[in-house]
Structure formats: structure tokens, C-alpha cells
């Protein structure tokens, strides 16, 4: 090792604290970059797995009818791999309940296709030859035809034609009702042994409207020599997925055509068609990377500029004894490489470790966030290119940070460097403070302020670091606060876990009531109701309504003065049992509401709305009608006829039974009536069944089964808990990453501040000694330093807090677009940031003063005079 490098290493050793802090800075920034890139690549990997599970790992599907075309396609050198599925023809499915799916569709798969397609066996095994067959399970649950494992089936195989054209799975069944017809022409029989069942294919493979249920068998290789009248489907993966869309565009001209495109996989693998989730991921990573880059460049640059300015005198001495500029520059680069060699590998390891642990902890939340429970896990995926990118990026940052301040030293003559005269050009104006400062804070405060002013750059970078931390902390916590709030709002809207809804045109047969009873009797269901909703309009007199409603109606031209005022009414017919329970809870007399002669309702007259003018939520009511008043309501039945009826407003209530909204919609009221006394009105606009469960996820599949067994469409079932769970997961994930990011950014800032302050103190050792020798006391000295801390902190907060409040306001505005909410001060996080700012500054100061305080005055004086 040459003498220059030895001197450099000694310098690093001497300034141990700064060297360690710089290395920590490099570790932090490298770790953050690695974490972000590893997260992005893990997520991409996970989504590819997820998509592969759902749709399969292929890019496009080409349909062809000739062997020549097939040869053409597979010989293209853009293709990485392909698999083949031959159309084995249709066979009528005897007894299919689905009028639009009257066939079985035989797919003959080559060996590779069994891997390419998303085949998930629920029972049995894959077919081993062309005599064995795997059946889609929706033949049973959608078609209602049951096959047994091991069953021998004999199928009448043929093709579908319409007007002489051969139809395929993309052509839905030409049902008589649609005005078209199709013809099945049998060409022979085939027999198979059923060896298993698999989950229904996604629409990319078996179109939702396809007329045939997929059944899979093995492709007899010899049958590829002649296709006869069969179609051949080739599932293709490209070597370069980015060029997939070029290929697709070019193939428009060919006879054979691209029959299905796996957009999800193509997007995930980076094809040019970037949109949706990918765009968000790339966008977010971009923003986060930019912030990390600014933070780490600031930190590393700062460290090196401190180091170089301290070494300036040394450089002067060295150059006066004949060290060349090149040697001096090399010394700076050596220093930076030394830091890099230690910091970067540690940073990469800790970044990978950190994100690995985070992902491990959050893996279930990610899966639920995607809305389904599938056997694909989000695991850490470290991509080599992203690690290399992190290394290169960190190295470049370090080298640039070292180069710029080093270059500045070149401009200074050797003797100036030795004398250190050119280091800081002070002028009186620069360090001028107002007389008031001295009056308020004393000479110590005045000295403190002048000290900050003497090196504006360093002062600014310290304040900026603190400012950024304050800003990030407050805004990120506001952001997650608003987010949590909006989700809670959504959750609060519901007082049930499951809703089954069908429109009034549905014939509510006995099956519904049977299913309702069966579901109610499930373990864990603790509340339920059947509700039928009817829309109506009440006409009221001016004095029966709140004045504002009347004036609003006049104002918007809905009525003329003196008219009866129309008011929208939602009438809920509540099932008898639920209604009686409800009445009892309210403490009202049952009989009053059971009178079939005089229909009596409970009114909910509460509006909860956001007033734009007053910028807050308001609760209001509309009616001034006294209880037990008759009001006339026009009800529209399903034939479009209007029936007027008189209803007694029996009582007002603030609570509601399960399923009824707690608040009425704007400008409307809600009436609850026992279904049994409104038997005459057997029509309704909406039919609902509501259920509350202790553990919604545990009973969900049982409810679905009951509905299916009763022949009801389980698609009408809505699981609120799932919805809320989904949003909670999103919030948790956002929170973890937001806070993780803030913590790391704050660490970078803290390191930066620590570095600046300790150096600042170190450089002033001689001055401190001087002050001591003219008789500053320990107390006065502390006072001066404390003032310095306070000035740093105050400045950061003076800029930081208003900016954060402003950004919080912007966040509020954007959240308010979607969910009505009100603006509130992030007081909590402001308080935390004030405390932490002063804590960081004071601790840095204390740390650096610890050594100096013990020092002999003369040692310090001599030290610098040497």
C-alpha cells in the first residue's frame, strides 16, 4: 500500500465516528434501494405465479387448421416454447341443465400442454393416454350432470355447424331464443375412462359463453400428421415478451388467427402495453427511488465534503512536500472505495433480509388483497439485475460525492490550504445577528446563532434533513390516518355480514324461504332478516316539514309555494319475527303496529350528510309530523300503477334492525312495517336476506352450498366481511410500507444530522477552548450549545410543520373526492415530530460534546496550532 493510502486509512481511523456514520449511511441507502428493487421483483414474480395459476403460463394462443401453418408457426425463432391442444370435437351432454352449454368439448393435450394450462385437479389424476379423460368440475355444479371417478363413458363425437361454418368454443351456443340456429353433426363415437376432475378453466381458455364443458385427454402424437377437420391450438411463449404485440400485429394478415391473448402475463413480463397495476407499481417504485436517491446522495455527499474539507490542510501539507494532484484525488477515491467495499455488501444483505422478513410477515395479507385464497405465496425473489443495479447506483453516488468536494480542493493553493485561510470567507454581515437576539438569549444565544450562520451550507443541509424527516413523517401518518378513516367509514355503513339481494322482478318462491331458514340455523349465524323494499312518495303540507327542506324545494324549482311537498319514502317490509324483536327492543307496544286496519309504521328520519358550505358532516331530520299522524303515500307497483295508501307514523326510532340503513338517503325518510300487515302489497322493488355471523369466512362456503342446493344463484351473495378484510389488508400493507419507508428515510436524515453536527463541533474545538480560557463557564457553554440545538430544531419545524399541514390538506382534498371527510390537524404526529427533532439534535450534540468537555483547554489549543 502506498503512503497516500496509508495516510487515508489513518485519517479514517482517526475520525472513527464519522467513518462509521458514513458507512451506516451507505448501508442504509444501499439497503433501501435493494429493498425496493427486490420488493418490485418479488411482487412481479408473485403476480406471474398468481396469473400462471389462474390462466396459465403462455402468452398467446393461435388457432390453425393445417399442418403447414402449424409448422410455420412453431419454426418462428421468436418463439421460446409452445404446446399444442387439438380440438377433439364436441359431444352432446345428456341432461345438461344449462341451456347454453349443451356439450362436452374434448381437448387433446400434448405433454407440454398439461404444464402450460392451469389444470388444478380436485379429484383423481391426469390422463395418461387418449383413452382416459379429466372432466371439468362445473359439468356437475353448472351443468348438473354427475360423472363418477372410474366411470366408462361413451361419447357421440362430432362438430357444430351454422350455415355451413364450423363453430368453435369462441362461438356461444346458437340458442333458439337468440334467433340463430346451429347443427351438430356426429362423426363417430369415442369412449373414455374418467380418471379425475379439475377446476373450471378461466375465460381465456374456455370462454365463459363457450357451449362445451372442457374435458381433457392426451394427444395421440400420430394424429398431428393429419388434422382432417380438427382445429389445432398452439399456446406460445415468446423469447422476448416485450415484442409480443409486434408479433400479434404482424399476424393480423394470416389466415390462422390469434385466438386468445394472456394480457396479464404479458404485462407482468414487461410488454409495452403497460397499464393498471403495473403502472402503479412502476410509478410508485419510481417516486420512492427518487426520494431515496435524493436522501442518500445528500447524506453521502455531505459526509465526503466534511471529510475533504477537514483534510484540506493535510492536502496542502502533502502537496507542499510534492504530492501531485492526481495522488491527492486518488487518495479521495481510495477513501470512497474503502467505504463502498464495507458499506455496499452490508447494505445489500440487510436490504434483502429486511424485505424478506417484511414479505414473510405480510404474505397472507397480500393473498387476501388479491381477493382469493389460492395456493400461491408471495415469497422473496431477489433478482440479480436489481442487485447489480443497486451496487452500481450506490457506487456511483459514493464516487460522485467524493469527486465534487475533492475537485474543489484543486483550486486552492498549497499554502492557502495549510493556512486554511480560504476555507471559510467570513464577513461581518454574514454572521450579523439582531440586537434583540442578544437581549433575549444572552451572549450564549448570540454566539449560537452566529455559529449556525457562519457555515450556511452545512446549516442548511442539516435543517433540510430535519425538514424532510418532519415532512415525511407527518404527511405519511396523515395519509394512513385518512385511509384508515375512509375504510372505517365504509365498514360502519353495514350492520350485517352477508347480504343476499335480488330485484323485485324475481319470483320469490318457497326455495328462498327454505334457504333462509337453513342458513339461519347454521352455527355461528346470530342475526338475520328478510326485507322487502318498496319505493314511494309521500305528499306533505308545509308545516309538516322542516323549513329548510321546504325552502330548498322552492329554490330548486321542484314545487310552487302552497303546493303539497313530495318526499321520497323507502318502505321496508320487515319479516314478522325480526319486526317484533325490533319493537320490543324499542320498548313500544306490539299491538299498535299489528293493526291490519290501520297500517302503522316506525319512521327513521335521520340524514347524515356533508355540507359543502359549512365543510362538515351534518345530521338533520326532515319531518315535523307528530307521532300517530296519518300520511298519504303513493306506491308504484311493478305494473307502473300508482296506489295511494294511508299509513300512520307510529313512532320515530334511531336504531334499526339488521339490514336497514341507519340513515335515510338525502331528502328521504325510511318507514319500517311488519310484512304480515302489508300482505296486500305483495310486490316489492328489492328482496333482501341479511345475516350476521361470528366468523363470516368460516360459514361463507356453507351458505353458498345451501343456496346452490336450493337452486339459487350464489352470485347474489355479498360478503361484507370479505370486502372489509380486503380493504384492511390494503391498508395494513400500505401502512407497513409507508412507515417502513419513513423510518428508513428518517434514519438517513438522522445519520446526516448526526454527521453534520458532530463534525461541526469537532471543527470548533479550538474555539471552545478559547471560550473556556476567557472564562466561559460549563453552564454558559451548555447554554450556547442548547441554543444551537433549539435554533436547528426550530428552523426545521418552522418550515416543516406548515408544509406538512399544507400537504395533509392536499391529501384531505384528494381523499375527500372519494369519501366525504373533514380536515383535521395531524396534531399527534406533529407532536411526535417536534419531540423527535429535538431529541435527535440534542443527542448528536451531547455525543460530540462528551469527548470535548473532558478535554484539557490547552490540548485543544495546541492541537489546532500544530
Amino acid at each position, binding site marked *: 500500500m502506498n503512503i497516500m493510502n496509508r495516510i487515508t486509512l489513518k485519517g479514517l481511523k482517526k475520525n472513527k465516528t464519522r467513518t462509521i456514520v458514513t458507512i451506516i449511511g451507505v448501508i442504509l441507502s444501499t439497503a433501501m434501494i435493494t429493498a425496493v428493487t427486490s420488493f418490485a421483483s418479488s411482487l412481479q414474480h408473485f403476480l406471474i405465479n398468481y396469473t400462471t395459476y389462474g390462466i396459465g403460463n403462455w402468452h398467446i394462443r393461435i388457432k390453425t387448421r393445417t399442418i403447414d401453418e402449424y409448422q410455420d408457426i412453431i419454426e418462428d425463432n421468436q418463439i421460446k416454447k409452445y404446446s399444442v391442444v387439438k380440438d377433439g370435437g364436441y359431444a352432446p351432454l345428456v341432461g345438461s341443465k344449462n341451456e347454453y352449454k349443451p356439450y362436452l368439448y374434448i381437448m387433446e393435450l400434448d405433454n407440454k400442454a398439461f404444464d402450460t394450462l392451469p389444470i388444478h385437479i380436485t379429484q383423481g389424476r391426469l390422463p395418461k393416454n387418449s383413452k382416459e379423460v379429466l372432466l371439468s368440475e362445473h359439468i356437475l355444479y353448472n351443468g348438473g350432470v354427475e360423472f363418477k371417478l372410474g366411470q366408462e363413458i361413451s361419447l357421440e363425437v362430432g362438430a357444430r355447424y351454422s350455415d355451413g361454418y364450423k363453430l368453435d368454443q369462441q362461438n356461444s351456443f346458437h340458442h333458439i331464443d337468440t334467433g340463430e340456429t346451429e347443427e351438430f353433426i356426429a362423426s363417430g363415437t369415442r369412449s373414455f375412462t374418467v380418471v379425475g376432475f379439475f377446476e373450471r378453466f378461466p375465460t381465456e381458455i374456455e370462454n365463459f359463453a363457450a357451449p362445451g364443458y372442457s374435458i381433457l385427454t392426451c394427444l395421440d402424437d400420430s394424429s398431428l400428421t393429419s388434422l382432417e377437420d380438427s382445429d389445432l391450438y398452439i399456446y406460445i411463449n415468446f423469447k422476448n415478451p416485450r415484442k409480443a404485440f409486434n408479433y400479434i400485429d404482424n399476424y393480423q394478415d394470416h389466415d390462422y388467427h390469434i385466438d386468445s391473448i394472456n394480457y396479464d402475463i404479458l404485462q407482468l413480463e414487461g410488454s409495452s402495453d403497460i397499464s393498471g397495476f403495473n403502472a402503479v407499481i412502476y410509478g410508485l417504485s419510481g417516486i420512492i427511488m427518487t426520494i431515496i436517491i435524493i436522501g442518500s446522495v445528500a447524506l453521502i455527499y455531505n459526509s465526503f465534503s466534511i471529510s475533504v474539507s477537514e483534510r484540506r490542510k493535510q492536502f496542502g501539507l502533502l502537496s507542499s512536500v510534492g504530492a501531485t494532484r492526481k495522488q491527492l484525488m486518488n487518495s479521495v477515491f481510495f477513501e470512497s472505495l474503502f467505504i463502498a467495499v464495507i458499506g455496499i455488501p452490508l447494505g445489500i444483505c440487510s436490504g434483502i433480509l429486511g424485505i424478506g422478513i417484511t414479505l414473510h410477515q405480510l404474505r397472507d395479507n397480500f393473498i387476501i388483497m388479491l381477493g382469493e385464497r389460492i395456493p400461491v405465496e408471495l415469497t422473496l425473489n431477489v433478482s440479480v439485475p436489481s442487485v447489480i443495479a443497486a451496487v452500481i447506483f450506490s457506487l456511483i453516488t459514493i464516487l460522485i460525492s467524493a469527486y465534487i468536494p475533492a475537485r474543489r480542493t484543486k483550486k486552492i493553493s498549497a499554502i492557502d490550504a495549510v493556512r486554511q485561510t480560504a476555507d*471559510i470567507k467570513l464577513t461581518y454581515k454574514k454572521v450579523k445577528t439582531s440586537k434583540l437576539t442578544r437581549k433575549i438569549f444572552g451572549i450564549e444565544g448570540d454566539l449560537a446563532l452566529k455559529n449556525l*450562520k457562519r457555515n450556511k451550507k452545512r446549516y442548511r443541509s442539516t435543517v433540510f434533513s430535519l425538514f424532510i424527516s418532519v415532512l415525511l413523517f407527518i404527511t405519511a401518518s396523515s395519509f394512513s390516518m385518512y385511509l384508515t378513516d375512509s375504510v372505517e367509514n365504509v365498514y360502519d355503513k353495514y350492520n350485517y355480514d352477508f347480504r343476499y339481494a335480488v330485484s323485485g322482478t324475481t319470483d320469490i318462491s318457497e326455495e328462498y324461504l327454505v334457504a333462509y331458514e337453513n342458513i339461519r340455523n347454521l352455527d355461528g349465524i346470530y342475526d338475520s332478516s328478510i326485507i322487502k323494499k318498496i319505493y314511494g312518495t309521500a305528499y306533505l303540507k308545509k308545516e309538516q316539514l322542516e323549513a329548510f327542506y321546504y325552502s330548498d324545494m322552492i329554490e330548486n324549482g321542484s314545487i310552487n309555494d302552497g303546493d303539497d311537498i313530495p318526499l321520497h319514502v323507502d318502505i321496508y317490509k320487515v319479516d314478522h319475527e325480526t319486526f317484533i324483536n325490533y319493537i320490543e327492543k324499542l320498548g313500544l307496544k306490539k299491538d299498535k303496529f299489528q293493526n291490519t286496519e290501520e297500517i302503522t309504521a316506525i319512521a327513521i328520519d335521520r340524514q347524515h350528510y356533508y355540507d359543502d358550505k359549512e365543510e362538515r358532516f351534518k345530521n338533520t331530520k326532515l319531518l315535523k309530523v307528530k307521532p300517530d299522524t296519518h300520511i298519504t303515500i303513493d306506491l308504484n307497483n311493478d305494473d307502473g300503477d300508482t296506489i295511494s295508501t294511508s299509513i300512520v307514523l307510529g313512532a320515530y326510532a334511531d336504531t334499526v334492525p339488521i339490514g336497514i340503513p341507519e340513515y335515510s338517503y338525502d331528502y328521504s325518510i325510511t318507514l319500517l312495517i311488519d310484512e304480515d300487515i302489508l300482505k296486500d302489497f305483495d310486490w316489492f322493488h328489492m328482496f333482501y336476506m341479511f345475516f350476521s355471523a361470528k366468523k363470516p369466512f368460516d360459514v361463507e362456503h356453507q351458505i353458498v352450498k345451501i343456496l346452490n342446493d336450493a337452486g339459487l344463484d350464489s352470485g347474489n351473495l355479498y360478503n361484507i366481511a370479505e370486502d372489509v378484510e380486503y380493504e384492511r389488508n390494503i391498508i395494513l400493507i400500505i401502512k407497513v410500507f409507508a412507515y417502513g419507508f419513513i423510518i428508513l428515510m428518517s434514519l438517513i436524515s438522522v445519520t446526516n444530522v448526526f454527521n453534520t453536527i458532530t463534525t461541526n463541533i469537532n471543527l470548533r474545538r479550538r*474555539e471552545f477552548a478559547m*471560550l*473556556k480560557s*476567557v472564562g466561559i*463557564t*460549563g453552564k454558559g457553554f451548555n447554554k450556547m450549545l442548547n441554543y444551537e440545538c433549539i435554533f436547528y430544531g426550530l428552523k426545521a419545524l418552522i418550515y416543516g410543520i406548515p408544509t406538512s399541514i399544507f400537504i395533509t390538506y392536499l391529501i384531505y382534498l384528494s381523499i375527500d373526492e372519494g369519501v366525504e371527510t373533514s380536515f383535521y390537524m395531524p396534531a399527534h404526529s406533529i407532536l411526535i415530530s417536534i419531540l423527535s427533532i429535538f431529541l435527535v439534535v440534542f443527542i448528536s450534540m451531547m455525543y460530540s460534546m462528551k469527548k470535548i468537555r473532558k478535554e*484539557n483547554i490547552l490540548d485543544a489549543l495546541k492541537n489546532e496550532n500544530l
Partner: protein
Amino acid sequence: MIYKYEEDYKMEILRVENLTKTYGKGNTAVTALDNVSFSVNKGEFVAVIGPSGSGKSTLLHIIGGVDFPSSGKVFIDGTDIYNLNETQLAIFRRRQIGLIYQFYNLIPILNVEENITLPQLLDGGSVDKEHLNELISTLGLEGRLKHLPNQLSGGQQQRVSIGRALVNNPALVLADEPTGNLDSKNSEEIVNLLKLYNQMYNQTLILITHDEKIALQADRIISIEDGKISKDEVIRS
């Protein structure tokens, strides 16, 4: 000595008793001061001379209360300064001792006026404007009050540091080679200034120097060799 008052004549302002200072321990221990004792009367101008490393600076710094003796005592105006706690010592330094260094050691962010009045400012007291103006005109620093140290020549900076040493009318002014960094013209000016204060205000002054010409202007010359007083001669009295 016509200026000196009769009652001050024999008044002892400084007494050094058996002062010893050793650096390091065991075999490598170096003795900088070896059992030094002497006293100085009020208004005396004492020059301390001796070769490099003889211990004269150490002696001065211990007297000034900025370094600590290994053993022995220092009395200034009757106060045993190493019997004071840190804060008391700091306040004592600020009021009773004026230190002048070879390298001026001014505070770079304070202007001339602020540097001179720093001991008073630290004391929290108000500045006696009349006294200050007199001091500044004696030092020849009129018109430079708002300058920062880096805007002044070496001689001017040293005059500022003299001002700072004198501003509180201390019991003792200690100067550690105040002219060591200056040319002969500036050196002469500085010495003349110090002498002026010594004679006009009966200011006690202890000055370390290498320069024989300067030493010969003192009332008394103490020579130090290997941490011991080798000669103590009164030139004039």
C-alpha cells in the same frame, strides 16, 4: 519608578508554591515543571525566558488556570485557584486573568468589539463604554470595531487579543510569546502597548519571550531550564 504607588510596592499578587507538572506515567513520564516556587508583586513586569521545551509555557498556562498542575498551588490575589470548582475557576479567569496567545485565538464569528468585550459579555454585565473607547483608542483599533478577525492583519489581531485580556482590568495579564508571530515593527508596538499598561495602570504582566531585547525591558527576568528556575534577576525596581 515614579508611577508606582507606595502601598502597592510590596503587595504580592501571585504566589506559586512547589508547582510540579508531569506528563505521562512510569518510564515515559516527562517532568515539565519541577517544584517551582516564586511570587510576583502587584505592578511587576516579569519576563520568562528559556529554551524550547523548558516548561515556560506550561508554567504560564497553569498560572492562567487553563492547565492543571500535578502538584503545588497557585495563589492569585490571595485565592488558591486550584481550590475552585470548574465554574468558579471559569469566572475567576474571566475576571482576574487576561491571557494573550501567540496565535491570537480570536473567535472568528465575533467582530473586534465583541471579541474584546467577550469576557464582560460572558459575565452578563454591561460594557463600560468609556473604558472600552479608551482601550480601543489606546490599541489603535478605531474604525475597525465591526471587522471580523480574518479581515485584520496579524498585529491588529494581537492588539484585539490584548484588548480582550485587559478589558476586565484583571489582576494578572499573561502573555505567551505575543510577538512570536509578528514582524519586528509590530512586535515593538505590541510590547510598547503592554509596557504602557504596565506603567500607566500598574498592570501586573507576565510575558514569555524568546526575544532578549523584549526581555530586557521587563522589571524582572525569570529563566527556566528543564522545568526549574535557573535564574531570577531583578533588572530594575
